[in-house]
């Protein structure tokens, strides 16, 4: 996994502040590949309750994380009871590492 302990702490903290202590955040995608370089930070945020205005919610978290992580591009995929489960969610759960 190509994230520093400090970056993981920042992600955990912001995810909990925004989505609650019962949320779970997983890293998936190219940042799991230790042989790759750079790349976006792909996160799956699992929330056990319905999310209002989900597009804005995930955009706001991604923007906060980008700023906190020095401008690195972050994508936040949401999983919540009121949202569809798409193939990408399956991939993110299967390969993702819980932070």
């Amino acid at each position, binding site marked *: 996994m190509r994230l520093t302990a400090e970056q993981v702490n920042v992600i955990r903290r912001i995810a909990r502040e925004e989505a609650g202590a019962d949320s779970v955040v997983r890293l998936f995608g190219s940042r799991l590949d230790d042989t790759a370089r750079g790349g976006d930070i792909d996160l799956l945020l699992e929330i056990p309750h319905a999310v209002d205005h989900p597009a*804005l919610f995930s955009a706001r978290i991604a923007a906060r994380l980008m700023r906190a992580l020095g401008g690195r591009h972050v*994508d936040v995929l949401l999983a919540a009871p009121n949202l569809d489960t798409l193939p990408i969610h399956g991939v993110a759960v299967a390969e993702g590492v819980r932070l």
Partner: protein
Amino acid sequence: MTPGKLARLRFLARVVDKECRHLDTTDRRLFVVAMTPVRAASLADDADLAERVEAFVGRFGRLQDTLADKLLPAILSALGEPTGAQIDNLDRAERLGWVESADQWLAIRQLRNQMVHEYMEDMDMLASALQSGHGFVPTLLRAANAMVGELLARGWGE
């Protein structure tokens, strides 16, 4: 202020003026009724609605990019302010009262990624992104007015 800088500022102000009017027009036409998940799902088969959404997303994105990537650095430079990475410029714009919040501006930029209907498979997310975008149109228009107003106040208008 060199003639070249002034000409560029005036050019960008004209571009922003047009982009604001075009965004406003398509925003009013598209959101006569709310963007619901059902309406978002109809984009796949409704070519006219899909084109209207495309126009909205394109115009929304172009105005935000022209403001943050072109006009903002040009005004800061004309004022003798340091310019740097976009986020630093946005922080300055927030302090100067031209944008409401740099963080909100970044969130709006992220939101645009979710407005692209061909990429979005969850209609709740697509509808939510477009409807949120509609809600931020006044935010972009106010930022444009503030920046162009600054030019006029400095006597740099046409």
